[in-house]
């Protein structure tokens, strides 16, 4: 078995919605294409429908009438999960406590009737791939959280699934471990080159792991795009605020400039409207001499974060602005500073009221 050549299936989710028996709509009808060996991240706060969508792909939920799920063009909507050949990693890992590490990893292969020797060889390969060497005979309750997570992943990819479905696989871990495993998981997904759908509420995970991100909100898709597109050109205020830090200012526009309490800022492109909701990322604003910039404000607070510092500036816009400045700049609270914002760093958002 060569792990490097597996790519999984291309998926098509057509018109899939989910209304539960009690009438609550968990997911508005959505259509999505997922390319072969692409990692698609479903990102959103809890209750946004991301897990429901994942479970529809898995075959654990049936979509409302008319919805279809296609794997490589084949309609699997009516097939239960056991017929779909999907690998799943759960938030709780759902490892079988009555089986050892090796037995867990090999369980799907055993169900497929693979001869013992062949099974052992494949399990050994997966053990090596996921860095679980020496733990094969351990019971599940003798593993650390990170090890359990890797066993769950190895078990899911052992069956050479058409698609790997990961439901918040890192959420149960503590922050430091989560960050390290995120990197490992990313390497592994690239190495396997497998089609994957990854559900998370953590935007940092989504950015690092996703080829594309689907931002979801209240059962509907808010935006689909690459991590860069989502970050730099959010489609609306929700996406801008959910992904990364954002300053959102509402201000009148006059002559291609935002009119702010602390001055004027030119915006790029044709700004024809008279009022705008504008987004500026903190790291795109630079601190400068107040005399040289069109916009100035008073430093309200400085939060030193080691590699950078976040400076809160009031009186520049209607709300205090967050500015991420290099850690070498020295400013004091109460000091008047100038702010320079490149015109193309200002993103005008549709005004949703």
């Amino acid at each position, binding site marked *: 078995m060569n792990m490097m050549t597996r790519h999984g299936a291309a998926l098509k989710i057509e018109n899939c919605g989910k209304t539960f028996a009690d009438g609550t709509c968990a997911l508005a009808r959505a259509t999505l294409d997922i390319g072969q060996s692409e990692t698609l991240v479903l990102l959103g706060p809890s209750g946004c429908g991301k897990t429901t969508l994942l479970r529809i792909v*898995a075959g654990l939920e049936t979509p409302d009438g008319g919805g279809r799920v296609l794997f490589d063009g084949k309609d699997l909507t009516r097939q239960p999960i*056991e017929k779909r050949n999907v690998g799943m990693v*759960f938030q709780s890992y759902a490892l*079988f406590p009555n*089986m050892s590490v090796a037995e867990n990893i090999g369980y*799907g292969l055993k169900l*497929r009737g693979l001869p013992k020797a062949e099974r052992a060889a494949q399990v050994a390969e997966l053990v090596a791939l996921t860095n679980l060497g020496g733990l094969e005979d351990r*019971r599940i309750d003798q593993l650390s959280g990170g090890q359990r997570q890797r066993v769950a992943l190895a078990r899911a990819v052992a069956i050479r699934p058409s698609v790997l479905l990961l439901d918040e696989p890192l959420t149960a871990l503590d922050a430091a471990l989560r960050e390290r495993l995120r990197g490992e998981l990313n390497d592994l997904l690239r190495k396997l080159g497998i089609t994957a759908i990854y559900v998370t509420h953590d935007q940092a995970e989504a950015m690092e792991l996703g080829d594309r991100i689907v931002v979801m909100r209240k059962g509907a898709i808010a935006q689909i795009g690459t991590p860069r597109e989502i970050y730099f050109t959010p489609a609306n205020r929700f996406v801008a605020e959910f992904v990364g830090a954002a300053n959102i200012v509402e201000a009148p526009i006059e002559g291609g400039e935002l009119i702010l309490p602390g001055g004027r800022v030119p915006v790029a492109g044709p700004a024809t409207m008279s009022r705008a909701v504008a987004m500026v990322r903190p790291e795109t604003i630079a601190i400068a001499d107040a005399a040289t910039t069109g916009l100035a404000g008073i430093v309200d607070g400085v939060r030193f974060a080691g590699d950078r510092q976040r400076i809160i500036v009031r009186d520049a816009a209607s709300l205090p602005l967050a500015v991420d400045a290099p850690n070498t700049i020295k400013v004091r609270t109460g000091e008047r500073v100038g702010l320079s914002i490149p015109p193309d760093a200002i993103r005008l958002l549709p005004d949703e009221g």
Partner: protein
Amino acid sequence: MSHKSFVWMCLLPLAAVTAAFFVLPMAHLLVTGAEGPRGLPEYLAIIADPRYRATLLNTVLLAAATTVATLIAATITGLFLQRHRFPGRAVMIAILTFPLAFPGVVIGFMIILLAGRQGTIGDVSSRLLGDKIVFAYSIYGLFLGYLYFSIPRVILTIMAAAQKLDPSLEEAARSLGASPWAVLRDVVLPALAPALVASGAIAFATAMGAFGTAFTLATNIDVLPMLIYTEFTLAGNLATSAALSVGLGVMTWLILALARTFTGNSVAAAG
């Protein structure tokens, strides 16, 4: 008074009660068993005497059959009740667990009403087949009574254990291609094993020692509690009934201890 001696003081009532109601009668029972005309070998009679040995075997077989049948019926019912919500579910659980409130006499009475000479089964069978089927007064009636008695306890234990089962375990097995039968075999039953062993042991012990039902149904059913009763009251054979009592106690205790060891292990294995 030091903290330690205070604790010891508090243990005194427990020690007194244990001595009065447990240690002394047990000791007396042990001594009585050895005071018969046969002396200490009286204890071997339970195995050596053909009649006693047959009764012991009968009792163990009945208890084992009750346990197996109870576990099968209660596991299926318990899993179903835990997983499905339907109108009348609460009523059904209430009815199923109702026998918990009955003493053995009432259970025996109900078995007679079902399968006795004037029982429902006899009525129906005599009309349909022209042959009156009556089995309440035999070991089959007793089996049915014990079943009725044990099922509620086991159902409740299984339902509690099934509730604690992580549903994603089953979903994970299914995603790997497991059929419903494989899920049951590889995931559900292993997870329920501790509960099955624990409640099975209780069912076994109850069926070994229960007396009320047997006494209500008939006097000629060969089970150990009945034998002890007849030796004691009819034959006045104090030594034999004491020895048999000790034998029954030791047997049941052994089974329970075995089950506990096994449960302990499987609980640890289930993490």
